[in-house]
């Protein structure tokens, strides 16, 4: 009996609270104004290199008079390549990839022409892809590689170098450039 009375009391108190407590009334006097808002989100592309590619494209133990020497990270014939590029996840457009070199490989006054330096590209990789059969020689202007890739896809790369007979010994260097442009746009030298 006491329990019922207590429950009844609580219910009555709750109802009374709702009825008695002051409620905030809806305003009658109002004044309204409006404006537009517009946000322009820019095209944003941020290219990234694989860790191995960040350390450089290295050809070790080259011999003169040899062709199609694999770069150290190619893993050609044994596994996927360690060289790839992609764009960051906040890149907000699909992209086309471009590649070029700044000039011949040089060591002091000696050079190896860019026509001896090759690359191949693919959106997938395994022991044979990218394939040597698809190689292209570097140029000093950008060449377009795969197109229309989104920010979840990688562009996989392999590099080969021919060393002409009689090439003077030394460490030869140049710089390779990568570029991602909005899909359908031209590479910008």
């Amino acid at each position, binding site marked *: 009996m006491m329990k019922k009375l207590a429950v009844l009391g609580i219910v009555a108190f709750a109802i009374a609270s709702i009825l008695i407590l002051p409620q905030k009334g809806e305003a009658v006097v109002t004044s309204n104004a409006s404006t537009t808002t517009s946000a322009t989100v820019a095209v*944003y592309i941020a290219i990234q290199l694989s860790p191995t590619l960040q350390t450089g494209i290295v050809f070790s133990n080259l011999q003169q008079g040899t062709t199609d020497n694999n770069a150290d990270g190619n893993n050609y014939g044994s596994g996927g390549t360690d060289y790839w590029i992609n764009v960051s996840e*906040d890149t907000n457009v699909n992209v086309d990839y471009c590649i070029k070199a700044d000039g011949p490989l040089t060591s002091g006054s000696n050079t190896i022409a860019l026509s001896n330096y090759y690359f191949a590209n693919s959106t997938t990789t395994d022991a044979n892809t990218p394939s040597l059969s698809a190689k292209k020689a570097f140029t000093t202007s950008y060449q377009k590689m795969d197109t229309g890739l989104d920010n979840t896809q990688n562009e996989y790369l392999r590099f080969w170098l021919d060393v002409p007979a009689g090439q003077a010994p030394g460490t030869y260097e140049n710089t390779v450039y990568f570029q991602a442009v909005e899909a359908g746009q031209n590479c910008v030298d």
Partner: protein
Amino acid sequence: MCHKGNLKMMEKIKQLSYLFLSIVLLLLAYFLPKITEFILATPFVYKPITYNETYVAVEVFERGQKVIVRANVSDDLNDIDQVRINITDPNNVKKVEFELMTDTGESCGTNCTIYEYNYTIQSTDPGGTWEVWVWANDSYDNTASNSTTFKVCVISISLSSVLSNGVNFDGCSPTGEYCYATGNNGDGVTDYNITITAKGCNADLYVKGNQSYLTTDSQQIPISNIEVAYSTTDSTVPTTYDPIGTAFSQGAIGSNLEDGTVVYLKFRLYVPSGQSAGTYNAGLKFQGVQNGYSPVD
């Protein structure tokens, strides 16, 4: 002989004096009650009270609302002749000039009657403090008066020209960072402000989005990614931002604002990482309401 004549003259003067005194006493006997009545019968007007249509005493009204003025008027002889009223607006224009108030027939005590007058506030009437004067006179032309005031609440908000032209976020990068509206002027004085006009009451100010998303053809950004900071004292606006919602109640940007207050605003937009490029659009709505009341969506 001469002495006898003087005595007769003295006697005559004495008789005339008695006669004059008698007449004065008679006149006093006749008029004294009237004088007393004159002094006691002066009417009295109690302080008038203003009511709304449901006869709840109210001091603040809105345009379109009926103001019922009631005054208790007493008179010892209960011979009130007329009760009249003046209602003057804040611009000192007499909206009601010496109009007769209606005898409601309701008693407010011994020899006391309630008089009433109704005035509906017009849509063009000004906001502010209005004055009410009530006069009463009796059949002896004795008068009494009393006064009160009521307020008419009128609120309007005015956007600065840059704010009217739109809140624009230009060249935002989709890098999961905030993009700041161009009118913020960085850390400088903002071009976005709202001027409050509040007559007869104070105002609360609110903002909301007109839809749930900023949209382009096929992409969207939640409207709550737009955040607003506000200040009534610092035109450079402190950097405490709150998200905007789709209900005014979610976007209070000023409270208990007095007439003439300027609310300074800054906006920023959180652009999610990888948000597609494009121009996204929506609308922002602002509302000023009478202080203490809920906004109306």
